């Protein structure tokens, strides 16, 4: 079956000034099939937000796509004309952003903002669009709040705002939703609620998801497959359970170990295992493997040669010389 989304060799860079540039996404390739939830795990500076924005060509002016293809339902989004791309945005692929308050227009009522999305893709009157907006608000669990469609964003809590954004995202029945850290700005209880909501939509509406997060726990319950990103590249990929329980790449292992272990036998207030040092500056990448300086399993050739992708199992790939034969 043809995958819903195919990304091939995507390369995106940011111009730092007239001469230098930093490669935020370095030759990324992956697929998403219909109804599948793919998680992208990575920390700040690894390029995951750039990845999300570049799929819909929403990058800021300082960034540019150097090469690659993003094929969605048979069409390459990177070369599509602007008006055709507009039809895909919101209706084929939607985005949910990290800061819900920032994604909503502060001077327009939330009901109207949802209606706006509906009217952009289907010709309908304002009255009908507003009715549908109310129905969508009910679907995301906001029906019980009195006349919430008449509220302005600043009158809502973080969780409510994020639900509104999700309502906008599902309004035109997209096939894929890109969620960029949708719960990071929310408190723990609301995080759970939002993820449950999204998972519900994935199952009921057969939506595919690309969930970008720095928190493995979010992806644990949510994703079918996980890609781990570091310094603009995919360093590991595999089924979610496998990646989280038996990670292959040293970075993934280090990342997962730096969480406090909260089992009944844990030793509280001990020092956590950390990955020493900091991620590399994307404008000044070292020769060889980007993780070599911090890697506990590093070998001498890691500093001189960039590792290739290998497939130790049919469904798992990893970018590390330790697995190359």
């Amino acid at each position: 079956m043809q995958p819903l989304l195919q990304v091939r060799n995507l390369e995106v860079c940011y111009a730092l000034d007239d001469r230098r540039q930093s490669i935020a996404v370095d030759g990324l390739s992956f697929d998403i099939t219909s109804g599948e939830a793919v998680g992208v795990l990575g920390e700040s500076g690894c390029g995951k937000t750039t990845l999300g924005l570049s799929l819909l060509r929403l990058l800021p002016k300082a960034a540019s796509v150097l090469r690659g293809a993003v094929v969605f339902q048979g069409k390459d989004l990177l070369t599509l004309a602007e008006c055709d791309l507009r039809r895909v945005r919101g209706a084929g692929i939607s985005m949910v952003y990290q800061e819900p308050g920032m994604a909503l227009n502060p001077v327009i009522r939330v009901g109207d903002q949802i209606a706006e999305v509906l009217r952009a893709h289907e010709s309908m009157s304002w009255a009908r669009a507003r009715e549908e907006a109310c129905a969508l608000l009910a679907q995301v669990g906001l029906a019980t709040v009195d006349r919430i469609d008449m509220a302005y964003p600043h009158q809502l809590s973080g969780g409510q705002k994020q639900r509104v954004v999700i309502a906008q995202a599902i309004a035109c029945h997209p096939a894929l939703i890109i969620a960029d850290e949708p719960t990071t700005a929310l408190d723990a209880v609301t995080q759970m609620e939002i993820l449950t909501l999204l998972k519900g939509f994935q199952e009921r509406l057969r939506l595919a998801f690309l969930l970008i997060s720095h928190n493995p726990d979010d992806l644990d319950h949510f994703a079918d497959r996980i890609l781990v990103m570091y310094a603009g590249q995919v360093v590991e990929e595999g089924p979610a359970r496998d990646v989280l329980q038996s990670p292959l790449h040293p970075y993934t292992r280090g990342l997962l170990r730096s969480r406090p272990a909260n089992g009944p036998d844990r030793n509280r207030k001990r020092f956590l295992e950390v990955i020493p040092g900091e991620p590399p500056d994307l404008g000044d990448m070292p020769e060889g493997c980007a993780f070599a300086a911090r890697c506990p399993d590093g070998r001498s050739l890691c500093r001189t040669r960039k590792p290739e992708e290998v497939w130790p199992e049919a469904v798992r790939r990893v970018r590390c010389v330790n697995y190359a034969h």
Partner: protein
Amino acid sequence: MSAALTMRTDLSPTDEPQVLLRALALCKGYARGRTFGRNRPSIEVLRAVDLKIRAGSTLALIGPSGSGKSTLGRCLACLERPDSGEILFAGKGLVSLTPRELIPFRRQIQLIFQEPAAALNPRFTAVEVVSEPLLISGRGTKKERKERAIDLMALVGLPAHLGDRSPFELSGGQRRRLVVARALALEPKLLILDEALAGLDLSTRAQISNLLLELQKVCSLTYLFISHDADMVAHFADEVAVLHEGEIVTLGPPRLPVCSRSPHTDQSPAVTAAFSRLSGLSRQ
């Protein structure tokens, strides 16, 4: 004054030793502006909050957004005055002191915020940021202040060559460390960490968490850890207080995480019940 005296007589000889900070019946509300000279009814943020923190330990304060955690943190840091109640720091009542009398206590209680970018003056260098508290309290010569700043930076794991950089040339983790160094400049006894580990990547969070644990031992610090991150709270704290709509709902040791999403956990029933009530969710 009489309130403080009453409190002292309440302390029996067998009471827990070394209670560094004790809050008693703290109330705080915010007025909502005036209509033709009359104050509109205020919003009560804190309602008769009681808590105590033992010296050298970590008390975590958790609760949903809007429960008043940050307000409580600011009251305890003497940045705001509570409407009523008392705060005892090492036995001395703080609420009735004048601002001038409060100065030596303010130095002993430092507050670290979540967003270091907002707390750092972009026009200072890193060394200036760390030595600013010393400058304000008039300690030492310029040279001494600079040396102390570099020592503090080393204590938090920042190499000396970063001293001349602007805070915005540093990474997020390094900025966090800088804020901690600044907080340590006046040798405080109590650090109030208001969501200080929030918004960090996992590996940076682990590094800062380790740093804070180490500093607690080395500098004999006491922490009030305000957070909504259940895993870190369970890992970090000796005791957990749950704040809901301005009142302390539960207070107890964090035997196990609160509302954590890891599948391998049991729950401390009282704490879970409190959280479930707070959120209206039932546990899956």
